[in-house]
């Protein structure tokens, strides 16, 4: 009998008032790997990301994480599960409460899970801050005094502080300048190497995703139309949409960077 994969999604679907945002999505992902989820706007990839983290409740199908069916959990078990799966939103810069300090932001997920004492929480927070390359002294700084790139790191630090197993980044790179994108990308790769984190990267930008992801799923009109390892996908794109996305990002990277 084959060992269960780390994450297995089977026939997942979500409808809003009878209109499907995506349907019959099936894929699996091994621990420590990165799946890139690409597709045009409106293809359902953000909704899929929200369902995978149980921010939205899927209307059909199953999500199995480490051999547990997350869809069958009750509310309490699901709340505990949230620590394992962390979702980082679009525009992470505005996903932080502007009234909170960095310390309040990073320790809050720990606090609501009654993790340790105030002291150990702060310790954990300052470790997380260090991991993402923010100075420990910045813990007392109000969120709104950080720059866009720093807030992005803060959002990652908050997600990391409770030591998740699966990190879902929904267009979290959008709006960051290229050097910050590169820094955060390197940070993610480094964390994956050290902690064996598993990522799902949602983006419409294929060029960004193929640098980080081992495999890529292309979504269109609510379905996964192609799912392959990055090398295969780049060498032999099957679906017309994949070719289109590939051409677009090749054109961009050839025009833009000085190699």
């Amino acid at each position: 009998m084959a060992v269960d994969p780390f994450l297995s999604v089977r026939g997942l679907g979500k409808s809003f008032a009878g209109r499907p945002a995506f349907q019959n999505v099936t894929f699996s992902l091994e621990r420590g790997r990165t799946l890139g989820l690409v597709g045009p706007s409106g293809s359902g990839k953000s909704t899929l990301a929200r369902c995978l983290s149980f921010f939205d409740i899927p209307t059909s199908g199953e999500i199995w994480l480490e051999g547990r069916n997350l869809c069958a959990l009750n509310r309490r078990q699901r709340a505990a599960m949230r620590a394992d799966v962390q979702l980082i939103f679009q525009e992470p810069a505005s996903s932080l409460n502007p009234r909170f300090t960095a310390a309040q932001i990073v320790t809050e997920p720990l606090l609501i899970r009654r993790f340790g004492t105030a002291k150990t929480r702060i310790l954990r927070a300052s470790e997380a801050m260090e991991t993402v390359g923010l100075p420990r002294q910045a813990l007392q700084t109000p969120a709104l005094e950080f720059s866009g790139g720093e807030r992005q790191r803060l959002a990652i630090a908050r997600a990391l502080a409770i030591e998740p197993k699966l990190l879902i980044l929904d267009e979290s790179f959008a709006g960051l300048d290229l050097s910050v994108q590169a820094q955060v990308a390197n940070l993610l790769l480094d964390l994956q190497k050290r902690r064996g984190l598993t990522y799902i990267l949602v983006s419409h930008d294929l060029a960004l995703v193929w640098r980080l992801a081992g495999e890529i799923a292309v979504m269109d009109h609510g379905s996964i139309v192609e799912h392959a390892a990055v090398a295969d996908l780049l060498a032999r794109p099957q679906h017309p949409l994949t070719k289109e996305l590939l051409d677009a990002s090749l054109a961009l990277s050839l025009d833009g960077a000085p190699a």
Partner: protein
Amino acid sequence: MRYIGRRLLHGLLLLVGVSVLSFAFAELAPGDYFSELRTDPRVSAETAAALRAQSGLDRPLPVRYAAWVASVLRGDFGYSLAYNSPVGPLLWGRVRATLLLTGTATFLAWLIALPLGIWNATARGTWGDSVSKVVLSCLLAVPDLLLAIVFLVLAVETGYFPTGGMVSPGWASLSAPERVLDVAWHLALPAGVLVLGMLPTLVRHVRASMAEAIDSPFALSARAQGIPRQRLLFRHLLPAAANPLISLAGFSFGTLLSASLLIEVVMGWPGLGPLFLEAIMARDFALVLAVVILSASFLVAGNLLADILLYRMDPRIRMK
């Protein structure tokens, strides 16, 4: 502190402006308290002129204004010709009655509007929200005066509520708890009308600012963190929704003296309203001016209060 000082100065200047303008407008309006006398054949023109001179109405405008300011500083607020007394003592009892009415109504309206608006914002799109929307829209469309009349008719028909006044005859002989109950009984109808009048605006504002807070990216991400509802509401959503509501609360406070004037007249509440109306009819200028200035002071104070609260609550304002 400098910020608050600046706002205070601003408010004082505003009050001076209001008083100067009120003086100027009163001057523009034809006639004064003694105009009626001229139509009375028993009073000679000389007598009328002498009365005017005696009351100081023939002095130039700046002189009268200076005299009035001095009187305000003494707490007299000018001299009422109709009551033949300084305005101050006439006002205080009336102000107390008005504040009792509007204070109770405003407090109750907020007490209902806050949970209702929050609930509406979380239940957007459900039939409960739609029903509440329709009811509130109807309330908004019905003039307060019509409500007052309907309430009065109900009071007369059923006899369950008094149709005017603040206390029953023989109130002084009642025990303390009975007195409170009696006032509350008299208060119920006018306060009810005011609450119904304030409710639609308040609920809509609470709903709108809560909806904005709920939809803001940081609230979404807080929910994705799995933060429990109660903590989400009190630590994240309410502080985020508070700013427009604090401004609105300041305005609520500011209208305490003016919100109920008409309702008081119609429903026979012995507050500032009936006094103000009589003073206007009689052209008892000092009394009118005192009410105007007091109302304006409340408005200024309400805004100032809101500004101070905002300044304390919101780090983004402090940083500027």
